């Protein structure tokens, strides 16, 4: 061997080249395998291109596949040399062996070299009409590959027409792949801005699809079901017919098929008039959905996210099935969290006891995050079911009794929400809460307790003392706590003016002079002016009755929910976000929004616009942390936007850059009458987008119907959230 003479850097490649040209077959094949191994670990073996190419013409199928694999990787970088391979490819597409024909056409489609594409059309034409279904099904997908590279060629050669004919193929697998290819091309064309519908599904096509559905492979079924979901029915009978034909797919072992079938049913059920059939469909949907939970955790998670959506539309689907959502000790956290959410959705008077004992159990587990969510779920249950509120409070009290710091803090936060929902009902709990004052070190818990003290200041004898503690440490506290302290003290003053005069004086002084948050200062100024000019008005504003909170049945807007239900089992339905937020090409820019602003009459367009607004707000987001609604610890994506809004300067900037807070208020009030509708107008897309965000992030936030009169100031006193500043801004709208 002459390898020692080669420069050491090239040593291995040199040796490989020698072996690739060896006279022994085994040695050559072995060398190809080593080349592929090197390729996998990203060593550059592109220099061996001619040597590998020489081994392409062989009877050994395995070796052929390996050479093809190599070609697919390097064809783009070596376009000149690929030409040398063309001959073999074209010859292979004429091979008597169908496996070889299919392999050749499959691989040619994957070579991303301009030069070879021109040679692809003739063999492809032939393979599309091959007598062997295996070759045909491969060729069908090859058309989609070609379209991806050079759409003109597909159109020039009439491949689209051929594909449309192939939907009537006798072989179900060919039909499935044809459907997949057409759908792919259609999506590709739409993304490129074409308005033409490349894959028109007529009622004739529909019947072909329904036949193939029962016969093709599981993956093919998903492709066909997706096509069925796109079909726009001509009559209600047709919708019913589709539903009846698709329902048996619920029994399929593949979760992808089951969820795709659910999607089709959800879409076409909208047109089903017969109530009986609707009921029957919903009833048949429940068992398969539950069965999805015996899949591996990843599939379970996808199923759970989709079940969550389905429940928002039809809360009755799984009403008797809460127990199957009980968390197993060894479930992964992401599954447990979803299960919690669904359990609360399914909670009713009949099963609330079982749920509460379960939640109490979870609250003693090790994972802090899960424990907190469990406690939150107890609060949500209390708010959802009036009759069970007292039992929930008792459970919370027991949990506070454990004196585990994070349990106590979360319980306090939850209690605040219960107080909001049931004012002056559970005052007996207050002493217990106050007894844990020293335990609290998290801003949210502190702010919650302060809010409770302020709210019930006239019932707590030592309220001034307790608030005094916080006034003492005012400047060291975080802004949400400062805001709450400020409001609570003012409330205390309005209720017991004689004992707290000094306290209120002190805090207004500190807040206006020593505080570096303009937000806190502004609020202090407003209170100060109110108190000094018209205490009666102050009372009306600060002690006003707050709108009751309720558990939002939906976490997404109704329009978005409908859209997502039409995409069940897709990523969008898993994230509960429209596709445009995470798929690159579909992202909508500002110009697209203003373009859509013209015609408001069309209902569809309004819906679309509302969606776009949400999209615009979320555009900058990276979805790294999408499943975690409270994204505080991630200073990117949603949190980045939130953090921006939370810094008072930025909040001010958003509300207009005026230095006088009252000016801001006035200007915003001026807009109220125009903008109070729930669907945000286009020019406010930034704010609207944030609205979507913060309501999604804090499920217990006040109901999204903001007050429309100037008494909006009261919305500054609802429970403090981490994004308090943002909530305030929202309240103003």
């Amino acid at each position, binding site marked *: 061997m002459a390898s020692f003479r080669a420069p050491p850097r090239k040593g291995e490649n040199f040796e490989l080249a020698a072996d690739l040209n060896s006279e022994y077959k085994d040695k050559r094949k072995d060398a190809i395998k080593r080349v592929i*191994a090197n390729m*996998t670990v*990203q060593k550059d073996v592109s220099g061996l291109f001619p040597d590998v190419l020489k081994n392409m013409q062989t009877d*050994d*199928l*395995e070796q*052929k*596949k*390996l050479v093809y694999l190599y070609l697919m990787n390097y064809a783009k970088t070596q376009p000149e040399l690929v030409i040398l391979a063309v001959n073999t490819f074209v010859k292979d597409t004429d091979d008597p*062996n*169908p496996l*070889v024909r299919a392999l050749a056409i*499959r691989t040619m489609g994957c070579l991303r070299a301009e030069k070879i594409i021109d040679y692809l059309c003739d063999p492809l034409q032939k393979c599309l009409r091959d007598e*062997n279904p*295996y070759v045909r*099904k491969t060729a069908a*997908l090859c058309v989609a*590959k070609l379209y991806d590279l050079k759409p003109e060629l597909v159109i020039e050669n009439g491949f689209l027409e051929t594909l449309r004919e192939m939907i009537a193929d006798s*072989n179900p*697998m060919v039909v499935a*792949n044809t459907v997949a290819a057409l759908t792919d091309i259609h999506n590709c064309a739409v993304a490129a801005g074409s308005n033409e519908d490349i894959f028109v599904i007529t009622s004739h096509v529909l019947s072909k699809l329904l036949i193939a559905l*029962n016969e093709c492979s*599981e*993956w093919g079924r998903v492709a066909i079901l997706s096509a069925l979901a796109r079909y726009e029915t001509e009559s209600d009978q047709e919708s019913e017919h589709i539903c009846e034909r698709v329902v048996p797919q619920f*029994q*399929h*072992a*593949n*979760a*992808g098929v*089951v*969820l*795709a079938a659910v999607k089709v049913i959800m879409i076409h059920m909208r047109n089903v008039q017969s109530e009986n059939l609707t009921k029957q469909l919903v*009833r048949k949907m429940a068992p*398969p959905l539950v069965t999805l939970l*015996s899949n*591996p955790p*990843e*599939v379970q998670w996808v*199923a759970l996210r989709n079940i969550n959506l389905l429940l928002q539309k039809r809360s009755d689907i799984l009403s*008797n099935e809460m*127990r199957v959502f*009980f968390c*197993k000790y*060894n479930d*992964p956290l*992401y599954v447990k969290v979803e299960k919690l959410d669904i359990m609360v959705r399914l909670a009713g008077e009949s099963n609330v006891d*079982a749920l509460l004992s379960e939640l109490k159990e979870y609250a*003693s*587990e090790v994972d802090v995050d899960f424990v907190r969510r469990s406690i939150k779920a107890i609060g949500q249950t209390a708010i959802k079911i009036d009759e069970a509120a007292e039992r929930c409070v008792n459970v919370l009290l027991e949990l506070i009794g454990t*004196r*585990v710091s994070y349990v106590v803090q979360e319980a306090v936060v939850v209690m605040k929400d219960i107080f909001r929902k049931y004012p002056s009902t559970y005052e007996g709990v207050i002493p217990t809460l106050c007894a844990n004052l020293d335990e609290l070190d998290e801003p949210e818990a502190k702010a919650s307790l302060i809010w409770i003290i302020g709210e019930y200041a006239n019932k707590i004898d030592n309220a001034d003392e307790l608030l005094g503690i916080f006034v003492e440490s005012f400047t060291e506290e975080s802004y949400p706590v400062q805001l709450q302290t400020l409001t609570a003290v003012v409330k205390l003053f309005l209720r017991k003016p004689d004992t707290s005069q000094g306290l209120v004086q002190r805090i207004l002084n500190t807040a206006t002079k020593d505080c570096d948050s303009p937000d806190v200062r502004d609020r202090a100024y407003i209170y100060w002016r109110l108190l000094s000019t018209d205490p009666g008005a102050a009372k009306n504003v600060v002690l006003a009755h707050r709108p009751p909170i309720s558990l939002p049945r939906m976490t997404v807007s109704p329009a978005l929910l409908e859209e997502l239900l039409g995409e069940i089992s*897709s*990523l969008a339905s898993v*994230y509960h976000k429209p*596709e445009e937020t*995470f*798929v690159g090409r579909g992202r909508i820019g500002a110009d697209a929004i203003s373009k859509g602003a013209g015609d408001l009459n069309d209902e569809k367009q309004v819906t679309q616009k509302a969606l776009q607004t949400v999209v615009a707000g979320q555009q900058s987001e*990276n979805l790294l942390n999408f*499943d975690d609604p409270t994204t505080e610890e991630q200073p990117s994506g949603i949190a980045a936007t939130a953090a921006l809004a939370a810094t008072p300067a930025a909040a001010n900037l958003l509300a207009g850059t005026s230095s006088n807070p009252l000016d801001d208020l006035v200007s915003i009030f001026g807009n109220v009458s125009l903008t109070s509708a729930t669907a945000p107008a286009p020019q406010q897309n930034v704010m609207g987008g944030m609205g979507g965000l913060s309501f999604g992030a804090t499920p217990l936030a006040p109901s999204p119907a903001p007050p429309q009169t100037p008494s909006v100031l009261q919305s500054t006193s609802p429970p403090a959230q981490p994004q308090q500043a943002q909530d305030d801004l929202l309240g103003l709208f």
Partner: protein
Amino acid sequence: MISAFFIFNQKGEVLISRLYRTDLKRSIADVFRIQVVSNSDVRSPIVTLGSTSFFHVRLNNLYIVAVTKCNANAALVFEYCYRFISIAKSYFGKVDEEAVKNNFVLIYELIDEIIDFGYPQNSEIDTLKTYITTESIMSTAAAVEESSKITTQATGATSWRRADVKYKKNEAFVDVVETVNLSMSAKGTVLRADVDGHILMRAYLSGTPECKFGLNDKLVIDKSEHGTSDAVELDDCRFHQCVRLDEFDSTRTISFIPPDGEFELMKYRSTSNVKLPLRVIPTVNEIGTSQVSFVVTVKTNFNNKLSATNVVLRIPTPLNTTDVDCKVPSGKAKYVPAENVVVWKIPRIQGGAEVTFSGLAQLTSTTNRQVWARPPIDVDFQVLMFTASGLIVRFLKVFEKGNYNSIKWVRYLTKASGSYQIRF
């Protein structure tokens, strides 16, 4: 659809990489390594960065990763990942780093065949094995005919079966395997008890046999009608793709042409009248702050001709346990400090019998006043010839042109692994 497929080892090194579509570059693998493999805080199986979504499944220190840039069908992608794992298992047994490295050529061949342009194609193990083998196939004249058969099978209405199967002795084995899920509260009430059943079949039948399968089930879509017979209520069933779903939907008959060899005919779920084979009664007392006493009784709840085997109880102890003094009448019990559990292994318990574990755990004193979370006791076991749901195979009929006699065997097994939990 699926734009790329990768297998990473635990360090984030790429073992297998295959791009299916042009919308991605190979360097996307580095993004996954940085954002997921070396990020300990990933708490979701799908990670989306920008417009690229990574679906990953962890298995024996491997990451099986599918990447997509579109609004893909998430359930399908995960189903595909798991399908790949089961195909790999059937080809080379264990799926771990070493196996992947040793079989990378085969894996490339497989993933080239089962996905085309991001769309999963034929993933039937039986069919794949006919043309993707560990020995190389020569494309000779004789092979051409063989290939035509293979391709017809791979695309045919019965893509899961070859037409020319021949056996001297026609046999079919049916295994009913039930996994019991139980969570029992500390007070002894059953919070959740259900059965995940799998009916596995090994069919060694010649020709193209048409099978009909019957159970004592009473599939209840509507829960309001309750049966009075010995019929078992199945909440839901799911079938292998060979079963004609439309026929099942209209007449409730399970008819199919089975694949050759082993496959999972159906899965079912049952939640009513679940017979719990083992009853566990724990009594755990914390004696002051330095000791915890355990008395755990296991009773078997079935005919005394049967027995539970491979019974393993995992009894959690507080985190600050130094040692546990165990006393058991049968089997072996040992404290495993690394996992904070006492593992009690009993090779065999007869039906109707009862065994009791007693132990005393010594604790060190700690300053940490957090209460002990008391994770549940977990029991693994197997009981042969017993079904927790009460399901029985009524008949399996085989019709074939050859009109041969076939022998059918039925076995029942009820087991639990990691899902039979008793709180205390």
